[in-house]
């Protein structure tokens, strides 16, 4: 089977701890980049843990590794520091998800690489 964990491992700081980069002019980049507009320098920051749903869709036909979760809501979340992330919205019936709904970030299992591979963790959001 194809193991994708090396890439996943490199993304650990943003997936586990919501680490972003803040440039000298105050712009937040998530995930952090190799270089920034105008050659600005950036410092790692940890993003806010709470936010609101900007928009969302409900996935009924997901990729095979997410099939047990269907139907599930996938949304764009604006965190309280202004940065936006894409995340599953869980622990809620997708029919009850609303634009503007307050959510908080939780640590969850994102997918498993089959029965023998790695368990991949990261962030999802749940209703506040």
């Amino acid at each position, binding site marked *: 089977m194809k193991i994708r964990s090396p890439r996943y491992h490199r993304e*650990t700081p943003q997936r*586990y*701890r919501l680490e972003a980069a803040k440039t000298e002019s105050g712009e937040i980049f998530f995930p952090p980049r190799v270089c920034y507009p105008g050659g600005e320098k950036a410092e790692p920051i*940890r993003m806010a843990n709470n936010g609101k749903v900007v928009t969302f869709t409900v996935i009924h036909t997901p990729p095979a590794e997410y099939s*047990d*979760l269907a139907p599930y809501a996938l949304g764009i979340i604006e965190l309280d520091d202004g940065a936006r992330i894409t995340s599953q919205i*869980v*622990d809620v019936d997708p029919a009850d998800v609303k634009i503007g709904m307050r959510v908080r970030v*939780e*640590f*969850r*299992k*994102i997918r498993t690489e*089959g*029965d023998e591979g790695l*368990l991949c*963790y990261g962030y*999802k959001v749940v*209703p506040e």
Partner: protein
Amino acid sequence: MPDVGIVGYGAYIPRYRIKVESIALTWGADAENYKRGLQLREKSVPGLDQDTITLSVEAARYALRRADIDGSRIGAAYVGSESHPYAVKPTGTILAEAIGATPECHTADFEFACKAGTEAMYVVYSQVKAGLIEYGLGIGGDTSQGAPGDALEYSASAGAAAFVFGTENVIARVDETYAFMTDTPDFWRREHEHYPQHGGRFTGEPAYFKHTLGAANGIMKKAGLTADDFDYVVFHQPNGKFPMAAGKRLGIPREKIETGWLVPRLGNTYSGASPLGLTAILDVAKPGNRILMVSFGSGAGSDAFIFTVLDRILEVQDLAPKTDPQLDENKIYLDYGSYAKFRGKILRNT
């Protein structure tokens, strides 16, 4: 010697529940008989994307919030569980990475049936007391499993509790510790088996009660205290009956146990059981209260702690979600089919 004790605590309980009736209906069992015998109504169930690691991380984050420290100051993080997600690969490294404690952090995964959580607390406390680390995290968490149709299926549940130990801003000072254990074959699971075996009635007198009462009497003698000296008591709670029976035999009034007696609404969270009971007590405790905690793990043994609650407790109680609201609010009930799917009990081609 400065006070050494708990400086922050956190509890995490999944939102999903299944009622005793739903399990009994599937297996043609008498629900009322189980509810009366086990003295529990429902149990928590982890979501499809939750396991011991995710529950432990959330509990640890709440504990750090109450301790008001950054994860990078944690010098040791130990997770006690009998449901570590990997057979080989530590729970502790993933947890430490998630809270930002790496790389200067010592981690280890503990296992001792339901006692692994207090073992983690015991060792972290010892390290802080010895001056080896400034702060440490001791965590008990489980997503425990009972074989389909077995009595354990009615109680085996999910949750985690985390405690930051330190010497600055202590909220509950450790006054005494004590451990009591013997080689007792009351409950076990062999390698590659999906579900544990247990000795039925043998799990009571020679296992739970011998060790729980042995540790409770031992620590009280060591500390020069009696049952009357405690405001709150929490025991391991594999069902509703055992902790209340242990209390009765020690002469402890029921109301001193009830605050940390979560099992009727939660089930048995194994390594998280007495630690989660302690979080519910700390949520309402007042400065000066004295707490007796006695865990139990099959195999078998008990760890005991005596805590005295200090003034700072009042400043931290509201800094993170409390335990009772997590138990009683926003519950999502599952039928047995969904529960079987959530717990991987349905046979499928891979």
